[in-house]
């Protein structure tokens, strides 16, 4: 298209009445971009701006009452809201513990199976199954597993002569139970990324290190980890971002209880927005989560550049 324009062979000359076509050709790049820009505006930019607008208003569930501008009032509420503090603490605990375990297990499994995986494609498929399942199905499955009277886990405990546990109902076990379910579902994701990373490692440095008599541990620490750093950063970034918006497991397994021990930010935002009909405050909490996610992402990206 550009070629014909630069040739000086105008389409209007070849096709009378083609002014529109000529205009379209001149602006083709913008026309091609327009659908994407429109979709972005409709689905991302507008909702984000609207959320900012909502976050500085008190919004009544009564449509006849106007939105009341409260400025930073909704954000100030965050400081004194005990339920928000509980949800924030629980979210941090969940994110740190779950992502750490998932990373260590995923990396460990990948290292273990790296050499054999090509021969064990069936095993690879089986390991992928949990992350393919819809989160709601995973949550319901674990609810049945954890059920104190009829669940399979307590049946095993009973047959082994071990004390029965209220897995999702015990204040000391509820968060642990949610973490176990999340680790079961998302360790394969880390495993898959690590496996891809390991497959892309260059062979020569390892051969040189082996000639120099470097142990497997030294090779792992001095070669594998530095080579894998970008992959590790991406894996952790994606998992942390996802863990910060944990909802399904908590909603189905515990509803935030017992005693608020599993109330996380996403569940609290949902409650504030839909159960308490206070979308302005919910928008402020959402913006806080967005801010934390952006800060974490930026930090991760910088780390990745350092690794490069």
């Amino acid at each position: 298209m550009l070629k014909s324009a630069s040739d000086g062979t105008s389409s209007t000359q070849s096709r009378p009445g083609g002014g529109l076509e000529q205009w379209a050709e001149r602006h083709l790049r913008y026309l091609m971009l327009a659908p994407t820009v429109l979709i972005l505006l409709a689905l991302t930019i507008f909702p984000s701006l609207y959320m900012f607008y909502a976050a500085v208003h008190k919004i009544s569930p009564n449509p006849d009452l106007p939105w009341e501008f409260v400025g930073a009032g909704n954000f100030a509420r965050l400081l004194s809201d005990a339920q928000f503090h509980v949800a924030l603490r629980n979210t941090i605990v969940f994110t740190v513990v779950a992502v750490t375990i998932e990373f260590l297990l995923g990396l460990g499994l990948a290292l273990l199976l790296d050499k054999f995986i090509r021969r064990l494609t069936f095993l690879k498929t089986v390991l992928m199954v949990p992350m393919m399942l819809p989160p709601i199905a995973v949550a319901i499955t674990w609810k049945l597993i954890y059920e104190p009277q009829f669940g399979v886990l307590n049946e095993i405990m009973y047959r082994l002569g071990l004390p029965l546990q209220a897995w999702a109902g015990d204040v000391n076990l509820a968060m642990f139970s949610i973490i176990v379910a999340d680790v079961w579902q998302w360790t394969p994701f880390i495993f898959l990324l690590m496996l891809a990373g390991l497959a892309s490692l260059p062979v020569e440095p390892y051969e040189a290190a082996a000639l120099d008599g470097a142990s497997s541990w030294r090779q792992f620490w001095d070669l594998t980890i530095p080579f894998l750093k970008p992959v590790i950063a991406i894996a952790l970034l994606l998992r942390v971002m996802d863990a910060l918006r944990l909802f399904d497991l908590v909603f189905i397994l515990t509803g935030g209880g017992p005693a608020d021990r599993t109330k996380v930010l996403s569940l609290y935002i949902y409650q504030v927005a839909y159960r308490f009909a206070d979308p302005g405050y919910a928008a402020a909490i959402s913006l806080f989560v967005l801010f934390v996610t952006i800060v974490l992402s930026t930090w991760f990206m910088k780390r990745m550049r350092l690794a490069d």
Partner: protein
Amino acid sequence: MVRKLFLTLAAAASALAISGAAWADITVLVPSGSEGDGLRAAAADYAKMKGTKVETVQAPYANVFEQGANAGATKSGVFDIVLMDDPWIPFFAENGHLEDLTPFFKNAGLEGPDNDFLSKSLAICRNPYNSGPYVCLPYVGNAQMFFYDAAKYKEAGVEAPKTWDDVLKASKALTEGGGGRYFGYVFRGGQGNPVVADFMPIFWSYGADLFNADRSKVTIDTPEGAAAMKTFMALRDVSPKGVESYNANEVGTALAAGTSASSINWPNWVATFEDPSQSKMVGKISYSPIPAGTKPGSSEIGHWTMGIMSASKNKQEAFDFMLWATSPEQIKISAERGNPPVRASVFTDPELTKQEKFRHYPVLMEAIQASTPRPRHPKWPEIENAFGIELSKAVAGTITPEEALKNSQTAVEQITGLK
């Protein structure tokens, strides 16, 4: 080529518009489960009989509130009728989402709903409670009952439990002899709505309530509240480990499987308990009104009611459908579909009462007449959440029962602005 594409798109859009308009004359938002299924079946009958197409949109319990509230707040008019749980009525009515039914009754030549409806069923449909105009009509007559295994209770030395002390005596003996696999009592201890729903009848049966009569003062942290909490904690101690996360399904399953001897429960579980494919306890579970504490027992009313959304564009058609669906004939059909009735004539209909599966009707009618509504407050969902957190903490043992009452008092005062 482009012209052809436009023509095709235009034809498709027209077809969609026509079919969309013809899709339904009125749209009803209903919950999943027997209540929604019953109304969906009624809607299909209505379409056949009257030619008015009624589309039902089913959603899980919590989502019905959210979708209804969202439709109300945005004046979308997407739903003409919402089948509401009765504690939601003040929220919907006081935020202008519900239509006052008075002019529709007048147009129909009626003063209001007829006297065959139970008085407690009608009282919740008025806003303010029992005094204001009707904003909905009752459809499903839920009120909690006390369910117990009479044979097991007899073994434990209690013939028919009349008081919470009777329940505790039998439950303690049964749990102690149960070897960790059988329990005298079971309840919904899950944080939020579940634990509040199972605590309220005990709360009331000791003369306690969340507010005083004119709703000007929060009255949770009182001697009456403390007495109720003491019984609740004693019941927890004879219940299975894990009730801290239990909701209706877990409690119903424990009773149907015969691993727990008693509980407070909703009447729609009777069908499950009497179904041999789902229950080991067919014919073995007895029903009674809520036991007494220091005051007569009172169950929580939990009716499903139909209201017209203010933004509806088909209000008259919606009212006609509601009036038809709540008629004696239709409430009887609804009862046969498994939904407890709201009319005295259906509760006492010999065709129903002679059937074994409706043997709980006299008890249920008594329970509805002696029931108490959850506090009629537009911020009830928030109040229930705060109270539910503190009750959950007490059940889990992270705070004392006294702290739970004190914290609940403070939290509800903050939410409502009352002192």
